[in-house]
């Protein structure tokens, strides 16, 4: 063991003394806001639900439900639905990165795989490729394929740590991009697969702005709920412990690799749901949708909003989509990347915790004007 290893081991050991497992769980509930008091076993279920849901949740939900009836179909479809879809994909990265400590750039790849799987199994413009399965068969199988692929990606990348993970997932993602670009027999090469539309179920055309909005809203809320629930379940707590100190968790008897791979699988399913919605939203899936710029866009969205809380993914997605839709009116249409790159750089440089971090800082500053309690000093 070299000197640097010793030093690192000592350092991580020392810092870990302050970050034992209850602290990790307290941090998440703290980040989740005042409403998220830990639910004890003695409280009946309904009571727990009443405690978890506060007034602002109800207000936000009401706004989300009323929103499409107020806004124009363009806003509903192009902005709100797209933001929800991208937010769902970014949510999978927030879960992996924020709670698992693994920044995977391959989340968009998994989402793209879902789109491709759906197009190949279901129906698309390329009749000689698509198998034409009905939607109730194609969607579960596509999700299953993505879960398997995400597990494989996870198994490969958890062998390494920290920044290595970024490199390997980026390499996997770009390799998949070149695969779909060059392969014509299954992925139809540069053209991609077109005319991927949601099925007509219950007599509703699900790609119309209003139904599509509610479809994405339900999926996004479900994803949000699942992440919020999982990070407070024993698995999620263990995952956060592993994020903070894998060696210690290993010594405590947790299977570090298994937890991490499971996190990848779960994030893969979330990303796959988002990927299917994204394919429906675009009506097509092309190599461009899994290109490096999209892999990075998902990271941009997650970092923009803040990775400390699942809400950040959706916040980042809203900002991203708004910039994409309206910033190009102000400047040259072609320069969107410059804008988003600049915004991303500014966020990384000045507020590593994203917009949520900015909000937190602002709130702290406003609060400290009034009084300086010991609580804030500790948080500083």
């Amino acid at each position, binding site marked *: 063991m*070299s*000197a*640097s*290893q010793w*030093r690192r081991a000592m350092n991580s050991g020392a810092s870990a003394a302050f970050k034992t497992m209850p602290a990790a769980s307290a941090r998440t509930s703290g980040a989740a806001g005042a409403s998220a008091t830990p639910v004890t076993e003695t409280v009946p279920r309904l009571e727990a639900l009443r405690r978890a849901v506060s007034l602002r949740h109800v207000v936000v939900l009401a706004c989300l439900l009323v929103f499409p009836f107020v806004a124009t179909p363009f806003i509903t479809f192009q902005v709100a639905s797209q933001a929800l879809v991208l937010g769902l994909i970014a949510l999978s990265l927030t879960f992996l990165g924020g709670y698992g400590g693994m*920044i995977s750039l391959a989340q968009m790849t998994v989402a793209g795989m879902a789109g491709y799987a759906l197009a190949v199994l279901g129906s698309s413009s390329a009749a000689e490729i698509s198998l034409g399965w009905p939607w109730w068969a194609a969607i579960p199988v596509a999700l299953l394929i993505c879960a398997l692929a995400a597990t494989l990606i996870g198994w*490969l990348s958890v*062998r*390494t740590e*920290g*920044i*290595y993970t*970024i*490199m*390997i997932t*980026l*390499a*996997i993602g*770009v*390799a998949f991009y*070149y*695969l779909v670009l*060059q*392969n*014509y*027999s299954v992925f139809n090469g540069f053209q991609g697969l077109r005319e991927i539309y949601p099925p007509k179920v219950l007599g509703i055309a699900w790609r119309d702005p209003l139904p599509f909005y509610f479809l994405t809203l339900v999926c996004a809320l479900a994803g949000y709920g699942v992440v919020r629930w999982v990070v407070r379940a024993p698995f999620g707590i263990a995952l956060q412990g592993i994020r903070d100190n894998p060696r210690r968790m290993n010594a405590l008897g947790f299977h570090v690799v298994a937890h991490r791979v499971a996190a990848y699988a779960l994030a893969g399913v979330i990303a796959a749901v988002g990927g299917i919605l994204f394919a429906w939203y675009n009506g097509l899936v092309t190599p461009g949708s899994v*290109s*490096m*710029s999209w892999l*990075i866009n998902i*990271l*941009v969205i997650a*970092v923009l909003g803040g990775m400390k809380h699942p809400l950040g993914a959706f916040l980042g997605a809203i900002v991203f989509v708004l910039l994409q839709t309206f910033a190009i009116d102000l400047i040259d249409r*072609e*320069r969107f*990347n*410059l804008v*988003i*790159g*600049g915004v*991303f*750089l500014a966020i*990384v*440089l000045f507020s*590593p915790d994203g917009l949520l971090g900015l909000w937190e800082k602002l709130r702290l500053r406003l609060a400290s004007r009034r009084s300086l309690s010991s609580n804030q000093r500790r948080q500083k």
Partner: protein
Amino acid sequence: MTRTSRALLILIAALIAVFSAWALWSNPRLYLVTLLNSLTLASLYFIVASGFTLVFGLMRNVNLAHGSLYLLGGYVAFIVAERTGWWILALAAGFLAAALAGLLIQLLLLRHMQGQELRQTMVTIGLSIVIADVLLWIFTGQVHQMEAPSLLQGPIRDIPLIRAYSAYRLSLLGFGIFIGVGLWWLLNKTRVGMTIRAGVDDRGMLAASGVNVDRVFAITFMLGAGLAGLGGVIGAVELSMVPGEDTRLLLASLIVVIVGGMGSVVGAAIGSAILGLAETYGLAYAPTYSVVFTFLILIGVLAFRPRGIMGRPA
């Protein structure tokens, strides 16, 4: 090395031998030309990836703007070559432009977040988006192709079996070896190299012994970025410059250092040889699946040597 992995290695070697024998027997010219192509491509990869691995080894900083620096060097060289007509001048300009950009990145951004590896990586991601878009703005999406120096234009004829082969491409091989030897000399025989190697092994100790680590970091980052720019100049002749090449070279650098081992120049050489061979042979013999070969190699190496072939515990 365990018994199973040795058996696997022998199996792979046998497969390659069988393939080579078959390919040599059926079409020796294709086989040999592909061999030359892959080795010349490997030397380009080596030049670019050695800078990447150098920076990573010392600063634990994954510079994801490396591909953008490659493109920057290529474009600057293109302009210089167009204005002056001197290829060697263009080479120097490409190196210097990228090195300067690297120095600025290190001084203005990365120095202020030393030790925050993830944040540094994200900054380089942001930079890569911005640089790529600015380059697209200035040079548009058109293909820019630089001319080879007059000395190296045209093919070399009368090589047995291959008949004719591009002189420029062949010179790449020499160029790669030259850079490799130069790096070896720099790292092993000079004081700067000694400091860099010491920094790779233990940064804290190096700083404690009175070396200005900030300066070593700046020099290394400059050198690494400059190598990317140099690769860009060479690639501008061989591959042509278009937006998107930055991604390709970044992917190549990533795979090279993952396969070869992060922070090791020898590993970068081995990794780029493997990648060049896999990619070119894949393209020549199984065009649709050439990427899959690369990917399989990546999986294989990670499965048996998670730190890469020459990698050491960090």
